[in-house]
């Protein structure tokens, strides 16, 4: 909001650049956003931790949330739209190109062999962030209980994750009111 004159096109291209060079999810995006925006004087050093914290607590893709928030700070609603479209355009085009080409090659014997090796590896790449998150987020026995219960219910009883999350949020709100009332 310090500078109403930043053209929307500039916001779009800067976030497109950030999107194009982010590989491996939202956290990889943070240092790139920081560099690009501080260099232009768009945000101060102390603002970024706030932006990241808010982006993590709102639902959705963190990288998109960061773009929405940062774009909003620059040019309000229009800035948020420009930043968001910018950050997803490169990956949208790359994925679309791959999807269109790959669907024709999926039965190719060489591709089948390559993906026979990739599939088990992908499962491990899902497990690694899970272990990291468990070490940070599960510090008590009841946290482990929640984690195991949600794994069990989704993987084996086929409960939709949406119900798990909805119940968790309601329980969290109820717990907050309960603690408040006891004080």
């Amino acid at each position, binding site marked *: 909001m310090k500078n109403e004159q930043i053209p929307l096109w500039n916001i779009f291209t800067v976030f497109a650049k950030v*999107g*194009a060079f*982010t*590989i*491996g*999810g939202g956290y990889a995006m943070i240092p790139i956003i920081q560099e690009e925006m501080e260099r232009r004087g768009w945000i101060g050093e102390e603002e970024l931790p*706030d932006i990241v914290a*808010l982006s993590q*607590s*709102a*639902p*959705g*893709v963190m990288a*998109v949330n960061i773009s*929405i928030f940062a774009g909003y700070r620059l040019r309000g609603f229009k800035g*948020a739209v420009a930043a968001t479209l910018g950050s*997803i355009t490169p*990956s*949208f085009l*790359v*994925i*679309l190109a791959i*999807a*269109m080409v*790959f669907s024709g090659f999926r039965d190719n014997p060489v591709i089948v*062999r*390559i*993906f*026979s*090796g*990739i*599939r088990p*590896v*992908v*499962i*491990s*790449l*899902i497990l*690694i*962030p*899970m*272990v990291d*998150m*468990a070490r940070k*987020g*599960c510090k008590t026995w009841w*946290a*482990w209980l*929640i*984690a195991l219960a*949600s*794994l069990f219910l*989704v*993987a084996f009883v*086929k409960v939709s994750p949406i119900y798990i*999350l909805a119940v*968790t*949020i309601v329980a*969290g709100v109820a717990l907050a009111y309960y*603690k408040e009332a006891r004080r």
Partner: protein
Amino acid sequence: MIFVQLFVTFFVIGLFTFGGGYAMLSLIQTEVVVRHAWLTESAFTDIVGISQMTPGPIGINCATYVGYDVVAQMTGSPLLGIAGSATATLALMLPSFLIMLALVRVYRRFKESSMYESVMGLLRPAVVGLIGAAAVILTVDAQWQGVPLLSEPRLSVVRENMIDWKSWVLLAGAFVAGYWGKVSPIAVIIIGGVLGFVLY
């Protein structure tokens, strides 16, 4: 109407994703593979692998790809596929957009409230379980016959993903390399592809 279904599905996924792209995978998987049966486990695994290798957030990549694949397969038209990927991607972002614009005004108060800590303290472990469930579903197919807990589960390995013992060695090796070796996900996927070509 497939576009309406895609829009609703990805809007709900966007609304309920907490904890980043990997948490989103379990939602996409349950909705797209289990509930709607738009894609098979192995087609979904391929999409996750490609989403990790290409630039951009993994959740967005995955939605873009799924949107294309589902519509293109169903209609046989690549052009409608493009419309499908745009539908899925925009629907995924719309809830974040609305919520972030609302939060941006009040977030300092929100972040320091006891409500925030209370909800996040429960959400974090729940999300850990969801991500674990995604990995389990891609590895084994578990189904209860009849009443859960009272009757025997039927467990079988997902054959397209875990072909034989070599698949399990690759899975374990990738975990060791990525977790303790800090090898980047892209390098892990490329090595996995090369080994797959050599071994199979």
